[in-house]
């Protein structure tokens, strides 16, 4: 038997270990550099400050509420989408769900305000029906967090629900299971595997939320730990305090990840089987169908309306730029190209790194495996402002040239996308069932061959989606290249912020719309790429009677 390339077990552990090592070393070194620069403030004393206690309490409180709400909405939507596997516009709704997370905060928030704000469409429409509705405060924070995170949760949960093996679904259908039994037999086992990871992800996103909290929070009573870190570092130059707060944040979120993700079961359910006809879920009809339709309609409106606000606001600016052409249009084009030049490698890198780290998680054994969930989450938990300052202190004497700078931007954007990408791939990667693994072992499908014949076919679609997220997160990421020195070389989000900072509201609205369109384009094209062919492949012999045992 020919030897499979990369069949040595070290190939499953080594790259992941290297990636985890790089992440850990960067984090520890960044924090250590800050501590080394400044005297360590006493932890007890820090905790004594009522301000900080209040901040921490509020952070935890809003993050918990936001997470619960996002998960509840996400789950309801995912279930409804699972029950209604075919309806016009379903694909588009999925793309919109993917889009909401990656929009630059300022764009999404401006859209939300256009709908739910004091002068928003909906507020005016519901005039008098909703006395006491006020966007600014906890309500607004929750609304925005649900807007960003419920679609993410829904998308990930739907992915899990759709991974339920067809035979199992058929049995449920034949038995006519309903309600709680259907949930216990079909949905819960699938969701259980991904729920801890999604919870940790959403919680961390809400915990470290920054601009949303400040814009919609109403005032400094709504302050997260991340704001306090930013303040310490940027306005008080108190490195020690900033680093200590960052450690508190890292510890809290890290603990949650370890607790939640370690308990998640990781094996696949049973071999999936492609069935010739779609399986009807027993709970597809009747009143439930109506309720699902209503829910999906409301949710679609919830997603579409703010985006429509962005569209309407940006259309004059964007058409203006295209009609007049000239310098502003050229700037827009160049910014677009530059953004993609960074985002494509960043996306690829995040997917690669996520695969390596997930492989480490599966094969690393008792001591190395926990590194996987921890390191895939770190980029979310440590404020990069902290990490960046620390690393800068370390690298100070020898910073690289322009090309290295570009690579570094892509690298860091890729790392930022890692938590999302890993979450998207974790479920599908772990979904291989025992029977398939047994076969693979006996047939000698090892190393590259195992990837080629077992993982790749199953992962094509999740990989395309993960890549889209990786690219889009980097594309929508505020800020990188203009900071390298040349204002003539902004990426799209940097251009947007530059226009915002100089009263160019109309152009900025146009740029925001254009950025949104580019993000949509990424999800549309990659969503299509990863689409499995509907039904079954064309059969060669249609005369053979097909029946099922």
């Amino acid at each position: 038997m020919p030897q499979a390339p990369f069949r040595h077990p070290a190939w499953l552990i080594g790259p992941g270990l290297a990636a985890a090592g790089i992440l850990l070393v960067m984090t520890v070194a960044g924090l250590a550099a800050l501590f080394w620069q400044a005297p360590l403030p006493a932890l007890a004393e820090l905790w004594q400050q009522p301000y900080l206690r209040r901040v921490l309490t509020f952070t935890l409180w809003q993050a918990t509420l936001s997470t619960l709400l996002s998960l509840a909405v996400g789950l309801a939507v995912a279930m409804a989408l699972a029950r209604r596997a075919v309806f016009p516009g379903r694909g588009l709704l999925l793309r919109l769900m993917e889009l909401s997370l990656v929009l630059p905060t300022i764009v999404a928030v401006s859209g939300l305000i256009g709908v739910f704000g004091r002068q928003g469409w909906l507020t005016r429409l519901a005039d008098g029906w909703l006395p006491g509705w006020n966007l600014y405060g906890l309500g607004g924070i929750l609304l925005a967090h649900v807007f960003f995170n419920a679609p993410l949760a829904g998308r990930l949960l739907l992915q899990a629900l759709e991974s339920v093996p067809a035979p199992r679904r058929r049995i449920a259908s034949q038995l006519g299971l309903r309600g709680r039994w259907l949930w216990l037999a079909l949905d819960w086992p699938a969701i259980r595997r991904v729920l801890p990871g999604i919870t940790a992800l959403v919680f961390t996103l809400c915990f470290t939320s920054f601009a949303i909290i400040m814009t919609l929070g109403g005032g400094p009573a709504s302050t997260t730990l991340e704001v306090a870190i930013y303040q310490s570092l940027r306005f008080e130059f108190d490195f020690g305090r900033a680093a200590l707060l960052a450690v508190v944040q890292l510890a809290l979120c890290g603990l949650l990840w370890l607790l939640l993700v370690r308990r998640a079961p990781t094996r696949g359910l049973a071999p999936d089987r492609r069935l010739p006809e779609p399986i009807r879920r027993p709970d597809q009809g009747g009143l439930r169908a109506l309720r699902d339709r209503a829910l999906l309609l409301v949710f679609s409106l919830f997603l579409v309306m703010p985006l429509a606000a962005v569209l309407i606001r940006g259309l004059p600016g964007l058409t203006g730029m295209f009609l007049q052409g000239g310098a502003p249009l050229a700037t827009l084009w160049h910014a677009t190209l530059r953004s993609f030049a960074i985002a494509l490698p960043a996306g690829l890198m995040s997917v690669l790194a996520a695969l390596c780290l997930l492989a480490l998680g599966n094969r690393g054994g008792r001591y190395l495996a926990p590194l996987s969930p921890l390191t895939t989450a770190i980029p979310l938990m440590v404020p990069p402002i902290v990490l960046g300052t620390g690393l800068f202190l370390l690298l100070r004497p020898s910073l690289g040239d322009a090309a290295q700078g570009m690579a570094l931007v892509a690298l860091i954007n890729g790392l930022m996308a890692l938590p999302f990408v890993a979450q998207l791939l974790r479920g599908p990667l772990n979904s291989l069932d025992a029977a398939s693994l047994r076969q693979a072992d006996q047939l000698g499908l090892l190393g590259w061959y195992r990837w080629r014949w077992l993982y790749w076919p199953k992962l094509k679609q999740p990989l395309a989606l993960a890549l889209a997220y990786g690219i889009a997160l980097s594309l929508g990421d505020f800020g990188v290249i203009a900071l390298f020195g040349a204002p003539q070389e902004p990426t799209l989000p940097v251009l947007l912020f530059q226009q915002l900072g100089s009263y160019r509201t109309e152009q900025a609205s146009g740029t925001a719309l254009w950025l949104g369109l580019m993000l949509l384009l990424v999800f549309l094209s990659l969503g299509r790429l990863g689409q499995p062919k509907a039904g079954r492949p064309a059969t060669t012999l249609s005369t053979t009677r097909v029946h099922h045992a």
Partner: protein
Amino acid sequence: MLDVRDLTFHYPGGARWQFQFTLAPGECLAVAGPSGSGKSTLMNLLAGFLTPDAGSIQWRGRELVGTPPWARPMTSVFQEHNLFEHLDVTTNLGLGMDPGLRLTARQRQRIADGLKALGLEGFGQRMPGDLSGGQRQRVAVLRALLRDQPILLLDEPLTGLDPEARALLRDLLLAQKAEGRLLVLASHDAEDRDVLADRLLPV
């Protein structure tokens, strides 16, 4: 000669088994016993999917305990889940001969011949999900045979099949015995055991 000695295994906090037998080329050993009696455990121990607590499995004087599944001279057919559901029939068969699927013309011919012999001509591009249970099982047995391994581990391979498929596969397995292969058969079915097995190992 397959020589299994004092092969012991226990699930954590569960039952404990010990197996001992020898088997010569051209022989078929039937493992009999009710559900949960350890038939599948023995199959998995032999194939290397489980690691025994103690004992040895010797094949032509070579110790197999500690050898990974892919390096053992055997091939398994289970009652179910023998095929990769996302790969078509030809790919499933081809992977049995070369995990890199770089098949020679002769190997391709063997696949075509095999499908034809089993009444599956033209099914090469089908997905397993599009086949009936009997057809799937024929493909599974065909793959096992294409692998040319001297030992066949058959765990309820004929259970639940229609009479036609059953008869066809039985004949095929008998032919394997005649070629000098060793068969270990776990089956509920007394008729299968009577037709195929030379000896019985109660568990």
